[in-house]
């Protein structure tokens, strides 16, 4: 079968870091990612099935990996070589379509009894993330044992399968997984006034989940969103942002809308109750800490790496910094409904065959400036898939 394979090749990884730093997405050309003919991994157990991906999205965490930016924290919880791709809508051998819940929890690893977190339904917080009968891997798409969505076939545990309605397009379905992330994030936010940093696909979907408060059982929210590019601004408005501003206008907007005072270093003395950082960079985190209200919460939704951020305001303003990772199983049900109701399939801007993976990665890495939101691989016409 055809697959994009990410191998452990330190020299190429270093080259990807350099190339990715020069131009986002160029790590695909110089790094350890390559299009290969590989065998489908052996099924780890009877509960595992073959999934033939139809569409597989490209996520920010994939891009960080390919461009060599991801933290070394991940080293013990991934296994090489792996096939990336965890935003997957695929087809089972019986022809039914499913979305994959990529988190690899105790039940997928054959760990019995399941850890306390998994038993409580918090599969994203699994305590046996690198153990059991699978190779280490926090998710499908980072685990050697399962394969990933950027291929013509992969494996999934039956507990990972979410059936999708017949009338849901593949384009909509491929957004279910990132939307589940957004739903999970929105559920953490109880404040009425929220600032969302970033209008990439994660930021826009989080915005959509925040404003769809009635579905989530939350309260009405006023959401201020930063958007760097005109199309992002348009999408943010369309998805319910109360206000949209450029990233460098955020402090001023929050100050004005909350009536806060401002110190000479830009730190607000008041601020907004909740900040949802969908970027996860040093700059976005520092900005979040400048604008969050005393006693407020910064929700870190975008994948962060090693950063150098002054945490004094966190301490001084008694703010909370809360990580938000992935989702629970039930978030997928809400996500399916949300994707359908808001027609979020519109956010899929471009698809590529596997053979054009360098173009696809570069497009995804520069999605905002090129007017795109979600870029995905389209496996439906891959020859190997249809054998």
């Amino acid at each position, binding site marked *: 079968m055809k697959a994009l394979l990410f191998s452990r090749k330190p020299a190429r990884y270093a080259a990807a870091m350099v190339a990715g730093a020069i131009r986002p997405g160029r790590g695909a050309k110089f790094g350890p990612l390559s299009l290969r003919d590989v065998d489908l991994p052996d099924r780890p157990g009877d509960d595992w099935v073959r999934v033939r991906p139809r569409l597989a999205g490209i996520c920010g965490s994939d891009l960080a990996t390919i461009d060599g930016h991801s933290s070394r924290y991940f080293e013990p919880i991934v296994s090489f070589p792996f096939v990336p791709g965890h935003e997957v809508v695929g087809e089972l051998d019986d022809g039914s379509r499913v979305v994959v819940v990529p988190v690899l929890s105790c039940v997928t690893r054959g760990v019995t009894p399941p850890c306390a977190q998994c038993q409580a339904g918090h599969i994203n917080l699994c305590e046996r993330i690198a153990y059991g009968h699978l190779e280490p891997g926090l998710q499908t798409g980072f685990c050697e044992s399962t394969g990933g969505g950027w291929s013509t076939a992969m494996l999934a545990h039956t507990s990972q399968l979410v059936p999708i309605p017949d009338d849901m397009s593949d384009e909509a379905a491929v957004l279910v997984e990132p939307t589940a992330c957004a739903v999970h994030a929105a559920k953490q936010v109880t404040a009425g006034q929220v600032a969302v940093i970033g209008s990439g696909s994660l930021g826009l979907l989080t915005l959509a989940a925040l404003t769809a408060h009635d579905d989530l059982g939350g309260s009405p929210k006023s959401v201020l969103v930063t958007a760097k590019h005109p199309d992002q601004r348009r999408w943010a408005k369309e998805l319910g942002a109360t*206000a*949209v*501003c450029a990233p460098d*206008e955020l402090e*001023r*907007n929050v*100050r*004005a*809308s909350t*009536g*806060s*005072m*401002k110190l000479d270093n830009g730190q607000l003395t008041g601020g907004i109750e909740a900040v949802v950082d969908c970027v996860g960079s040093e700059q976005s985190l520092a900005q979040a800490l400048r604008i969050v209200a005393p006693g407020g919460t910064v929700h870190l939704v975008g994948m962060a790496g090693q950063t150098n951020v002054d945490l004094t305001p966190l301490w001084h303003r008694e703010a909370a910094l809360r990580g938000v990772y992935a989702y629970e199983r039930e978030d997928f049900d809400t996500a399916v409904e949300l994707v359908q109701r808001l027609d979020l399939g519109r956010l899929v801007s471009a698809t590529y065959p596997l053979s054009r993976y360098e173009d696809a990665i570069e497009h995804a890495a520069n999605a905002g400036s090129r007017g795109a939101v979600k870029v995905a691989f389209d496996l439906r016409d891959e020859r190997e898939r249809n054998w």
Partner: protein
Amino acid sequence: MPRPGFVLDVDRSTPPIVFHHGEGFRLEKLPAGRSRVLYPGEPLAPLDDVEAAISHALDHPLGDSEPLRALLRPGMKLTICFDDISLPLPPMRRPDIRQRVIEAVLDRAAAAGVDDVHIIAALALHRRMTEDELRHAVGDRVYDAFAPSGLLYNHDAEDPDNLAFLGTTPHGEEVEINKRAAESDLIVYVNINLVSMDGGHKSTATGLASYRSLRHHHNVQAMLDSKSFMDRHSSELHHSNWRMGKVIRDAGVKIFQIESTLNNDTFGQSGPMSVLQKREWEWNARDRASFVTMKAALDRMPVKARRAIFQAWKAPYGVTSVQAGEVEAVHERTTHNVFAQQLVEVEGQTDVLTMGLPYICPYNVNSIMNPILVACLGLGYFFNMYRGRPLVREGGVVIMSHPTSSEFHPVHHPSYIDFFEQVLADTTDPKEIEQRYEKQYAEDEWYRHLYRTSYAYHGVHPFYMWYWACHGMAHAGKVVVVGGETKAVRRLGFTPASTLQDALEMAEDVVGRDPTVTHIHNPPLVMADVT
């Protein structure tokens, strides 16, 4: 004998007309046979002896007022208030008329044994004046004698301990002014009446007021009912101020008003800028060379350098009159003198009104003309330079020429930035803006802090600028900005055009083919008396 202003009918021999364009100029050819240019009058002859005129005014007051000397006595509280940095435009060369008048008043106060004297810059919700600006207005001698001991200062409209509530008008308008002034035995108000909007009861009722008071006439409805605010008898802005003036008087506050008028000598009779005061078809070879050289040099300069040059310009105005005494009697005479310089009779309205907006307006002295001020200058001040009817017919098109850069002075105009980014991004409708956003900005602690301790205009000030333009917005069928930054122009709700010809073509979509065009050749200042 200076020639009065007049209306030129444009024909094929008419040379291109100078349009002010921020810190630069454009030469524009207006359509022949259907265009006219409204030129200001040449500068009236200035007073030969300004000090003598001041003395005469103080000693021979108008209306029901005693001479100033008779109002001064030992042990009294005297407060001298003066117009702030917003007047005149551009600032005048030293000595400023305010300095000359204040020195004369202080001489009389000293002679009368008055030793409790405060001097207050009546800036309402404008930014505080810097030391340099205060020195320029009142002179070094006065500044050094009063400022170090805290007796010369800026009015603070947000200091609750120094505001006095004097009552309400029959219309329910609250009157709250500077406490020191209100509790003085005499206020001497020293004004510069650059345009007919200034002066009268507006000096004290606006210049020394708080937001609580100002909001009663600085609002959308008052502006829509002021047609125009340059004609006080047809101006709700002034009706309200006059009602407040009565409350102030009835509360026992005594005001001795001193108003002065300036001529149109804005750019001087010699030097490179003097060509701006000449009519284009009368330019000689030297004028043409001077203008071309100046324009070419400016066009090549970075904007900061251009701004520095223009903001450094001090006008050689001549003082044309000084009158003092009772507020209303004084202001009648003052207005007459302003009109003598500025008013020009114009027959009928026009389909399209064009204007070249200069680098300065009342709120960007030593600062930056941001897009909101561009809207205010064009649709507020220039549009309202009429008596009778607006120069442009209802539903007509206003074409303004200005670079309209989305640049803001971060110290002077912090709330303007938020207004531009937050409010105008949402709506440009003045009434909606007033209802949804004014209170939030007016009561914002941060803006209040910056107004009181830094050099920022009050948080509500950009709203007032927008209201100032609302009569023009409501009246015009379309507003086009030539040579402006597209994004900023669109944010204002106006239409951008690259050239005047493009703008005129756009105008035809609104007013029909071959419309009549009138260009208001301003500055120097000219006001249309439209019949």
